[in-house]
């Protein structure tokens, strides 16, 4: 299969503008500016491309929410790639950056945006520096800035570095951070696409890097052609980030619905090191529910809908593999510590819940827990779910709920059978 996103595997040095231009680079944008903006959106709708950042929302529909009557609109590229185990956007920006820039400009043209902001996580400062140079190179070719490709349409592209917070990958927190405010999610409605909800209160499309990198191909070959790839509900290809206990971790771009977890782990990624058995899979980093590596799971196809059928999510497709030696309680503790550290603290259940969960899991891991503590964390996590302002509260509950559901014995191994109430101390101590 030729790659759509990770084209550097087929075309070396595609990161250079001349190479990119020589290989159908900016043909998508050229096509786009020859069309009416609404036609570009229709093309995207026909492709049935779903957002690659995790939620899987149809991209064309997202673009169509932007009210055309508003004079000022923005496109924000979410390059705050901070989901545990995700490293696809980094590879795209390092090796095929123009495709993302082209995609962002196609989106900008489709909604007639005045500017594109590329919000990168703080650790990507070198990429940001590189992108700045590449944006200038594209400007020299009249691909960015005033009167792009002589179409009369003008759009600026800026990069912006975050200050290092997982929550800023959430679109409304990202917008706050971009505006210079505290990186905390906003109340919705109004949604970013609406007046009053986006960047500087103007309608804004926020898309993931990989999502936008698909746009040039879709424009080039047409939405229907794109939709032929993959399944009906999961069209196109997906870059899968494989990490953990595999011999060949890395990014694999696969056509959706053609491969199973078994193909991915044992054929492409070379299986588990040292011939160990596989215990569990985290299909979407720390934020998605863990699944035990049963035959049923291993034979599940890599699509949004098939992952749902095994009670997990494909999300950003950061597949983490845990082998049989891993203590799932320890893994749950690691993930909980991550979410405790990354909770923004704005709303109560997430702020207090992650803190509390961490305390109890620590106790369990120290061997001081009781059997009732396992039920306690299960219940606390359940209480966090569905009550928070943004999805981070749900994400933070997932590792606990799913690990206990699938691997209760790992937890009970740390607690003795004795179920007396832990000694209670008085308040204020």
């Amino acid at each position, binding site marked *: 299969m030729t790659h759509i996103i990770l084209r550097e595997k087929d075309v070396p040095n595609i990161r250079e503008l001349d190479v990119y231009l020589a290989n159908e680079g900016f043909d998508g944008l050229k096509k786009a500016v020859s069309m009416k903006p609404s036609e570009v959106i229709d093309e995207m709708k026909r492709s049935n491309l779903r957002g690659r950042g995790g939620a899987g929302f149809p991209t064309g529909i997202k673009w169509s929410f932007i009210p055309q009557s508003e004079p000022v609109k923005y496109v924000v590229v979410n390059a705050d790639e901070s989901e545990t185990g995700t490293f696809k956007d980094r590879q795209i920006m390092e090796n095929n950056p123009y495709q993302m820039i082209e995609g962002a400009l196609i989106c900008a043209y489709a909604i007639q945006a005045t500017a594109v902001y590329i919000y990168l996580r703080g650790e990507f400062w070198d990429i940001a520096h590189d992108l700045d140079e590449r944006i200038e190179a594209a400007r020299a070719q009249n691909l960015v800035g005033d009167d792009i490709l002589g179409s009369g349409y003008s759009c600026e592209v800026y990069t912006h570095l975050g200050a290092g917070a997982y929550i800023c990958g959430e679109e409304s927190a990202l917008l706050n951070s971009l505006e210079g405010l505290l990186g905390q999610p906003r109340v919705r409605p109004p949604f970013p696409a609406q007046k009053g909800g986006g960047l500087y209160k103007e309608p804004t499309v926020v898309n993931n890097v990989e999502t936008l990198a698909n746009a040039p191909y879709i424009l080039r070959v047409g939405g229907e052609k794109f939709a032929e790839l993959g399944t009906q509900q999961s069209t196109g290809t997906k870059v899968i980030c494989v990490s953990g206990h595999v011999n060949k971790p890395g990014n694999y771009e696969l056509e959706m619905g053609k491969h199973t977890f078994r193909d991915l782990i044992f054929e492409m990624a070379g299986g588990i090191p040292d011939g160990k058995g596989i215990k569990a899979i985290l299909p979407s980093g720390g934020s998605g529910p863990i699944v035990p590596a049963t035959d049923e799971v291993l034979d599940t196809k890599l699509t949004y809908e098939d992952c749902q059928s095994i009670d997990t999510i494909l999300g950003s497709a950061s597949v983490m593999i845990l082998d049989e030696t891993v203590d799932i309680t320890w893994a749950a503790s690691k993930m909980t510590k991550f979410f405790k550290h990354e909770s923004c603290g704005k709303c109560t259940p997430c702020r207090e819940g992650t803190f509390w969960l961490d305390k109890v899991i620590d106790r369990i891991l120290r061997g001081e827990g009781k059997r009732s503590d396992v039920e306690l964390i299960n219940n606390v996590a359940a209480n966090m779910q569905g009550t928070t302002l943004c999805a981070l509260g749900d994400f933070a509950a997932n590792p606990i709920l799913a690990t206990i559901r699938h691997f209760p014995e790992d937890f009970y191994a740390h607690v003795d059978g004795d179920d007396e109430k832990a000694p209670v101390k008085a*308040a204020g101590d």
Partner: protein
Amino acid sequence: MNIIKGFATTFKHLREESITLQYPEQVRPFQERFKGRHHLRRYDNGLEKCIGCSLCSAACPADAIWVEAAENNDEQRFSPGERYAKTYEINMLRCIFCGYCEDACPTQAIELGHEHQMSFTDRRDSIFTKEMLIDAVPEGGQPTPQKVEAGAFDRAIPDMPDPK
């Protein structure tokens, strides 16, 4: 006939031991939980247990307790935490010795003791001030206010084995 019956009862009781005590020479033993005059307790290091929260005063059905609080710090520490009782007074004429104050106290600072011989010739003497109510500094402890190590006593309500 009735008169004989009557005297029979009298003579029966004459033979019994007298239960009248020659108070105050003789004092009847107290039940452990007898509620007498109040005491304000101290910790072993001499700090006052009372944190001036006024819950005793709020609980008092006779409105006999008057508390005024003030702020404490490590330079001038009366009690653990930030608050201590600057004024603590009980009007013993009003007190009905019900012990609600004891129940309300979150630090077990006020306890009703066994003393009950309180008489005054002036109504003003019925007001027992903090100086009268508070226990003597225990052996090894310091009188209050104390200058203490910073941060050592910054919580008002102490560890208790069973808060219920």
